[in-house]
């Protein structure tokens, strides 16, 4: 049984992950069928995004609507000067509107944890700072599960700006829990060796990292990192860390290529490779709706079972 809030993959058990993935499989049938269900009839789901997002927010909206929930959205222009007190005030107001689940994205690590501490509504972390992006990881796990039989012994490489990536962290936690081997690759300024202590293997030579893997996952490079001196140019990045068709040949024959999007074409992935048969990027998007439906369903069920506790 998942907890009151979905704050990260790190604090989930393997059983939680499996339950969510199994539920998501069922949810996908709704998406592919009539697209209508009344599982969340009478429930109110609100998204609050303090950071710009199109696909994640829309994905949650579709998930809520496919399940028959009331849905609302608040977009808050954010900046580093927005104080958390106003964050708590904002979400308290939303809670007073009887939201059952509040989905939050924030540019600061731990912001959803702060909200969860003060609110009765269930909080879903839709990405917090550099910390976690659990629903992205769940949709990635779902996609991998559909393509590969088992996570056990699966070799997965995540390439790019690891240290600033909440997607990389959440995927790493999930994959390690499910028994996969996690390789991380990127320039040393974007990938501290410390990740080895967390259970991953660290590579600075992408050719070695990609060798014999089942899954290649690219990450979006924030180009402003170049200005802050973390890598010298996007051309150099593309040459030494970019995912190309040549490099994909070093992976297993039936390897798949993933990316959370949007892609900087010809930087982290060559355009040709992104469109190739390796790519499962579009399927990831559909699965995103399914796992978010699963989470909403499971959280609302949990709330119903624990009504007296809320």
């Amino acid at each position: 049984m998942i907890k009151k809030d979905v704050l990260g993959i790190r604090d989930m058990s393997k059983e939680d992950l499996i339950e969510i993935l199994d539920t998501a499989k069922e949810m996908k049938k709704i998406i592919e069928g009539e697209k209508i269900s009344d599982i969340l009839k009478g429930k109110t789901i609100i998204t609050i995004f303090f950071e710009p997002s199109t696909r994640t927010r829309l994905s949650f909206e579709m998930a809520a609507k496919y399940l028959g929930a009331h849905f609302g959205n608040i977009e808050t222009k954010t900046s580093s000067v927005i104080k958390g007190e106003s964050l708590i005030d904002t979400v308290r107001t939303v809670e007073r509107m009887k939201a059952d689940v509040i989905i939050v994205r924030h540019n600061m690590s731990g912001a959803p944890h702060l909200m969860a501490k003060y609110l009765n509504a269930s909080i879903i972390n839709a990405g917090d700072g550099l910390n976690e992006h659990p629903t992205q990881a769940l949709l990635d796990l779902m996609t991998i599960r559909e393509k590969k039989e088992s996570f056990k012994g699966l070799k997965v490489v995540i390439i790019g700006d690891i240290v600033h990536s909440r997607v990389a962290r959440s995927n790493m936690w999930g994959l390690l829990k499910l028994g996969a081997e996690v390789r991380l690759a990127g320039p040393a300024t974007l990938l501290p060796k410390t990740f080895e202590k967390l259970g991953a293997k660290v590579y600075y030579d992408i050719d070695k990292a990609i060798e014999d893997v089942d899954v290649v996952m690219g990450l979006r490079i924030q180009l402003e990192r170049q200005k802050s001196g973390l890598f010298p140019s996007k051309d150099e990045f593309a040459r030494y860390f970019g995912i190309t068709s040549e490099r994909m040949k070093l992976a297993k024959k039936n390897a798949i290529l993933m990316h959370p999007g949007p892609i900087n074409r010809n930087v982290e992935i060559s355009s040709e490779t992104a469109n190739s048969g390796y790519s499962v990027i579009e399927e990831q998007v559909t699965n995103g709706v399914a796992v978010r439906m699963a989470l909403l369903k499971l959280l609302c069920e949990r709330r119903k079972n624990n009504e007296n506790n809320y």
Partner: protein
Amino acid sequence: MKTIIKGGTIINGYGGNEKADILVDNGKVEAIEKTIESNDALIIDANGKYVLPGFVDMHTHLRQPGFEEKETIKTGTHAAVAGGYTTVACMPNTNPVIDNEVVVEYIKSIAKRDGYSKVIPIGSMTKGMMGEEISEMAKLKDAGIVALSDDGHPIMNAGLMKRIMIYGSMYDLLMITHCEDKMLSGEGVMNNGLISTMIGLRGIPHEAEEVMIARNIILAKSTGARLHIAHVSTKDSVELIRRAKADGVNITAEVTPHNLCLTEEIVDGFDTNTKAYPPLRTKEDVDALIEGLKDGTIDVIATDHAPHTKDDKKVPYEIAAFGISGIEIAFSVIYTYLVKNGLITLEDLVSYMSINPAKLLKTSYGIKVGNAADITVVDTNKEYTVNVDNFKSKGKNSPFNGKRLTGVVEYTLVDGKIIYKNNGKFEECNV
């Protein structure tokens, strides 16, 4: 009025440890004898308790003037005496900054009016702590400061730092330096390491501290200035200071109770009460800090008492204020984590928390006949659970909230007056 502290074990700060009575009169220690009897004296029963020289904190933030919502001289010194401190030196990051004699006089007068403990203001090194022009150090000295610091604003310009050391040394002012290379600490909010990697908070590397300590050691060596390194937190910093001392550099150092007793692990969970500068480091660093205390590399345990409002901390970790409110539990924390665990003795604690800081601030120290009767009576058998709501300080920001600690301050006497008694009676102002 005469007071007799009866039957306690006195650790006098001069190496002595004896069970005796202390007669206090006219603000001074009048006699220390096996037994002292008097019909007209107030008796403090110290049987089974320890009688210590009052603690001296050389790193306190009283926040007044300018940030009275966080703390005032009244609440800060009330917290101080509740923690057994009889003297506190307050940092100059007030508004206005303590960069001129008027602010020094203001603090002294408010302390006289509202204060529970003695207060020694620390002057800023540069005007407005802007790191550009040196402050009026001679005037500040005449007004009553004994030390200079730009507190959390390290002097990034080495040339300026050298001039500060040269000029300030004319007046024998202690240079208290917050050692941080801002370019290395960047946007970091916690120790750079395993936990920061794990939870996605930006890290402050240990080199940020060490690079600046190394630079300041080099400058102190060439200028002969009295250099004091504030809140040391890393293993390599301890080693740099150890080598500098061996090399004859005029250097001393302090460490905070939280850096001595807590590690970065407790930041996992995003409790903003764990956010401080320097950040909580690793077990290896903590072990090195304790070793540094034991071998004399680190001279002082100073609280870096940094009270903030609840709103300052009820925000995401990245934007929460740095700092821990700790002056009133510092003794219990050190007693529980270090003395009780056999890492240091109670006599050592007295050296680090009372004698050494008093010497650096050039104020009286130790319990002996003729000295000011600044005395703290503690019960090392009692335990309690920290509840920040009971803090006298306005700052409730403590990572020790809810922790079980041993060692209770029973009485604090400032200039012979009982300023604090556990349970709050006998509290007086106007020290």
